[in-house]
């Protein structure tokens, strides 16, 4: 098959409400701050009202062709259907982060490409234990960043600051803490 490699082609997938679209928005803002080409493409069907939801984020130095990613270089999967749907399509050398709180089987039984790094850990459990309920998405993003440095660390911090709405500034510190927890996990 042809290789349509961009520098960062990430699929973020899970249940609606887990915050994958928001995590994708942070990643897209990293590209924006870095002055790169960026696209963020959400699923916008009934999924976003409670089924599986996913988004594709491309960061590239060339004009981006299709924003729908068929061969990701990175994947965050927060439920089992997402692992089953996307893990096998991750390109050789790519990175996969799986939240095994819900995706209990991890990447078990999935035929992965060569040299794919899998980080499977209980992000939702960690979030709840740390009083960061609802921030497992950011923990996963932190983990992915530790595997695939898609930008400099201060760029991520700036992107998180940008994405937390002004009216909810009290959530900024927990988001930054969740990101660090992901790196350390």
């Amino acid at each position: 098959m042809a290789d349509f490699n961009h520098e960062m082609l990430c699929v973020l997938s899970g249940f609606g409400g887990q915050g994958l679209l928001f995590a994708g928005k942070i990643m897209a803002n990293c590209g924006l701050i870095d002055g790169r080409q960026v696209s963020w493409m959400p699923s916008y069907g009934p999924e976003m009202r409670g089924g599986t939801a996913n988004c594709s984020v491309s960061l590239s130095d060339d004009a981006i062709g299709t924003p729908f990613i068929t061969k990701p270089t990175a994947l965050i999967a927060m439920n089992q259907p997402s692992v089953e749907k996307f893990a096998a399509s991750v390109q050789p050398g790519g990175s996969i982060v799986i939240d095994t709180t819900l995706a209990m089987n991890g990447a078990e039984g999935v035929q992965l490409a060569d040299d794919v790094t899998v980080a499977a850990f209980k992000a939702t459990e960690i979030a709840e234990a740390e009083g960061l309920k609802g921030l497992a998405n950011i923990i996963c993003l932190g983990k992915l960043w530790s595997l695939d440095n898609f930008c400099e660390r201060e760029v991520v911090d700036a992107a998180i600051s940008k994405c937390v709405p002004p009216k909810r500034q009290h959530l900024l510190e927990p988001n930054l803490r969740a990101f660090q927890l992901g790196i350390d996990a």
Partner: protein
Amino acid sequence: MANENKAQERVLMKGNEVLAEAAMRAGCRFFFGYPITPQTELAAYMAKKLPLIGGTFLQAESEIAAINMVYGAAAAGARVMTSSSSPGVSLKGEGVSYMAGADCPGVIVNVERGGPGLGGIQPSQSDYFQATRALGHGDFYMPVLAPSTVQEMADLIYDAFDLADEYRTPTMILADGMIGQMMEPVLLPPERDPESLPAKPWATSGHGNKREHNVINSLYLSPDKLEETNFERFERYEQIKEKHQRQELMECDDAEIVVVAFGAASRVARTAVREARAQGIKCGLLRPITLWPFPTKAIDQVIEGGATKFLSVELNMGQMVQDVQLAVNGRATVDFFGRTGGVLPTPEEVLEAIKTVAAGEPVQQSAAPGAVGSLLPHPQHRKSSYERGE
């Protein structure tokens, strides 16, 4: 951190929101609409922001009501727009025809979804015929601009208002669910004061008995008079065809095969053409930006440059391919590949179609005008389905 200055000015926004923001910056102060996926963010953005700059947002009781409010505001000289998605746009057809008949400028946005009927909500381009041929009854066309990036959502709607005013015609932005829903960085155009825009001496804007009253009307009971107005309108259409064809050419200079694609399909085609080039196929992309007028001069140009094969790639069963055939007029082969119903082809599928055309395989089956059967995707192109979002 390359290109730091530029990065400072860019904002990350959804395509639908950019349409709304850029329209306001172009001087639009009136919006009438009705919600429908995948277009609703546009109306929601207008509802929030338009009143803050002294504009009027009104959610009408239906699409039909909305387009007639647009007609009224346009007659009074306002910069006005409406937006919807495919089934809702069908409802606006009558009003758009009246606007064309009465020479009223306005902008109509269609963020297309799959059809026919209620269809689906995923991206589609199956309203190409409707937009470029017959959105309403009667002898008329309207300029149709097709953005392929979020940046173009801003640039083209800005231009659409000017085009509408200059030629006194309804003008359409034909987008799709993909460009509407995605976020990309965008440099927003400068804000314009509506007062600074060219005057509209024909508008029914009140005159205090200082001049003859203006009439806005699309009813002409005398056939001679109606023919005269249609002739006059078609003279304007000729000027638009002459001056406003727009397209992007990528890798076309030495291309033997030219892929023709617009909007969402052109994004997929761009990826496929790049890969075809990497594999040594002399392939280029002709991306129409104006669908009406269709960029026939660009087709001439690539044929003169040596193109012998055209492949129209669309999110429908083969609509624009007919305009490609008309423009090519027998000078090269014309083939078609498309997916429909809201399914987006993968770059791999399009690459496969390019290779098939390069090998000359389906060329003898290439579509002749009216030969609908031959417009079906070749069976080998339909094997790998990429079911997005499920």
